[in-house]
């Protein structure tokens, strides 16, 4: 079920009313409702994949129970490996099997040996990368004794399948989300209103910004051989706003929806395009995944202990793995590596933690230095997104070669460019709103709160009108494929 669909618009109020009016007296019943609703939500795509979630839930629950009873360290390790192998096994099979087979064949044929192996027609279950990482975090944290294993299966199933963040995050930690299923939730008016506002802004980002940018980005990327360098830059810019609007919009809707049910999810995006260097960008982009890799990969690998070489090696590993997490394609691996290369100078000069606060805090506009840093970081990010969006490496190279050709100095031209100018105004408005709200949780979290109600409502209606005007196509979210 898509957040931007009529199905969800019907589903959400029904679950909300049942949750607060029918099951509110009984915590177990309330959790059970969440599990049922989440399974309906997920099964809406393809009910067959429910068995995967159920299996993953069962395995990690039993591993948790096993870890509780087991004191022998090597047996505890075996239990942890069971969880890791099951979860990563699912991922490896559903997401990476064909990639490995194809590359295996290609590698052999490169050395002159032809081997016969057939790739399988595998459908990637929606959001598998998200919920497997979430359940893994539970097993690892239980193993590390950072969290008590749960004996409440329903609460655990609700934690794994919690529908607002099930298919595209934020990837929650058991330490943060699971305890919220143990305590009775009480309805908080201001939290719910804030949740609604965040949902509204998320829908605006998705439908008005991402989906509109997607139309042009797809057109330019899909026919990139026909366009000039200047048009291709425009295409990369469209994709830059598309992916941000799409993914952060999803996160906003997920977080806002959770708030309606009395839950707090972690912030997943913190205005990343206003970053002053690439390290800051990665502290602000897909925070739940970056911190996951930090806690469960970077630190176990030795983190920043053990000298500069170790730091560099570990940084490259997490960026490459993070790239690979996004998809079984070399383009994602190059994208990850490119970001690691961007990171390298900051690491070598020990300046990767220079910009920890909000840019231009307490000021309306940034100073020249900040502006320059921001533009440079944004430019590097746009460059890297070309690899992320390209169909394959050859496509990315052709795309970039055309950008760095004489055609860069011609006027951009593509069918529908006239209507694309309207999008320019929307994106400008969007950047303005994001900039003014950059110290909040999301752009409009504090906006217009002190305005008189009719004016404030008028502003919200304007956003709704834009969503209504540009909506109607129910476009998929990009990150579902990951």
């Amino acid at each position: 079920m898509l957040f931007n669909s009529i199905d969800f618009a019907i589903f959400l109020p029904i679950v909300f009313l049942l949750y607060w009016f029918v099951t509110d007296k009984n915590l177990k019943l309330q959790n059970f409702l969440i599990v049922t609703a989440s399974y309906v939500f997920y099964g809406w795509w393809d009910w067959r994949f429910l068995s995967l979630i159920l299996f993953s839930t069962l395995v990690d629950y039993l591993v948790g129970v096993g870890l509780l009873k087991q004191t022998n360290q090597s047996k505890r390790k075996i239990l942890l490996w069971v969880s890791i192998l099951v979860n990563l096994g699912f991922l490896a099979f559903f997401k990476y099997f064909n990639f490995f087979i194809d590359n295996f064949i290609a590698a052999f044929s490169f050395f002159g040996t032809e081997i016969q192996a057939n790739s399988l027609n595998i459908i990637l279950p929606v959001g598998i990368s998200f919920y497997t990482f979430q359940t893994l975090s539970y097993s690892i944290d239980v193993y590390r004794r950072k969290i008590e294993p749960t004996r409440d299966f329903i609460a655990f199933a609700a934690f794994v399948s919690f529908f607002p963040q099930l298919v595209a995050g934020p990837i929650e930690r058991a330490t943060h989300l699971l305890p919220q299923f143990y305590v009775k939730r009480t309805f908080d008016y201001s939290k719910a209103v804030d949740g609604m506002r965040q949902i509204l802004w998320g829908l605006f980002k998705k439908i008005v910004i991402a989906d509109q940018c997607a139309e042009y980005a797809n057109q330019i990327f899909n026919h990139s051989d026909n366009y000039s360098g200047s048009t291709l830059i425009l295409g990369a810019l469209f994709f830059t706003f598309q992916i941000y609007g799409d993914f952060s919009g999803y996160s906003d809707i997920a977080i806002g929806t959770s708030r309606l049910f009395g839950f707090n999810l972690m912030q997943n995006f913190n205005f990343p395009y206003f970053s002053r260097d690439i390290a800051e960008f990665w502290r602000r982009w897909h925070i739940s995944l970056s911190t996951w890799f930090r806690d469960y990969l970077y630190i176990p690998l030795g983190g920043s202990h053990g000298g500069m070489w170790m730091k560099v090696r570990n940084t490259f590993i997490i960026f490459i793995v993070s790239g690979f997490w996004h998809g079984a394609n070399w383009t994602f691996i190059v994208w990850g590596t490119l970001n690691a290369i961007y990171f390298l100078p900051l690491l070598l000069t020990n300046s990767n933690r220079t910009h920890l606060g909000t840019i231009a805090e307490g000021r309306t506009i940034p100073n020249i230095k900040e502006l320059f840093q921001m533009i440079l970081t944004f430019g590097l990010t746009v460059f890297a997104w070309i690899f992320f969006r390209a169909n394959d490496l050859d496509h990315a190279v052709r795309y970039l070669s055309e950008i760095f050709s004489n055609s860069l100095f011609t006027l951009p031209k593509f069918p529908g460019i006239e209507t694309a100018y309207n999008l320019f105004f929307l994106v400008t408005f969007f950047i303005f709103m994001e900039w003014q709200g950059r110290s909040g949780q999301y752009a409009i979290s504090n906006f217009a709160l002190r305005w008189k109600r009719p004016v404030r409502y008028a502003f919200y209606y304007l956003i709704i009108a834009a969503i209504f005007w540009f909506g109607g196509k129910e476009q998929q979210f990009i990150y579902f494929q990951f």
Partner: protein
Amino acid sequence: MKPFIKKILLFTAIPVTSGLLFLILLTLYLKASYQDYPIGSNISILFAGDSHIQSSVDDRLIPHSLNIAKNSESLYFTYYKLKMLLDTHPSIKQVFLGVSYHSLSNYFNQYIDGKYSVNISPRYFFLLPFKEQIRVFNWNRNHPAGFLKSIFKKGMAQAALHRYSFMGGFTNSFEGTTAVDSSMEKRIKFQYYTKGKLNPFSVYNIRYLSEIEGLCQARGVELTVLSSPLHDHYYKKVPKAYKDKLNQIITTNKLNYIDLTNLPLDENCYIPDGDHVSFFGAKNTSKTLREMIDEQTAER
């Protein structure tokens, strides 16, 4: 909790009520404005139908005529369009209605109550009586946002810019094309078969053909059914059941019929799908039609 729900309901009620009110006012305004729909007083002949008529009858070559055909237009919507025009323009004396074999196939239903309804029905929404508007809403209940948006856009364009999306008119930009066997076969499959099985007849189009006949009779307007030219290869592939059905409808209802299906045309008179003519084909078709109309007028 209750104040929250109250506030949400109030917040939603404001735009819903005002949107509804706006839609009602827009409908009333447009219905009134159709009275003054600008068709020249010298127009006495209308050519109605779907893309086949739209692309094959160049009304500039036929005096006192107007091509109002529109692509993907089913006879259900043609009926309401003609009703409005005949009610408000007594100068119209003759209607040529495009009906070909494909018009009888229920593949056409996807443009009425099926998956393309969301794109097609908003064009005609304001022409429809209230009962039919509700019906159309119901057909598009799975895409309410897209449908409502389209209605508002089309309504506003009609009210503010006098852009009547339902009107159509001659258009054909195909030059230097010929029919292609594979395209024709694809087209035949699309129009007459679903998963290898012959499509049933379109109940809507057959019913509204007779409604149009009744409408013309009641208004004293002469109705002639017109089948546009088809490429020989396409024609041969049309299922016999459809050929028989069209013949049966024409003879049972004693309809005037101009059959240009087998009009001899050069290869460059077709576009690849073989059931639409190119610009040259349109020129030839229109000349033939003009001769026929002139002959008819002389006989009277």
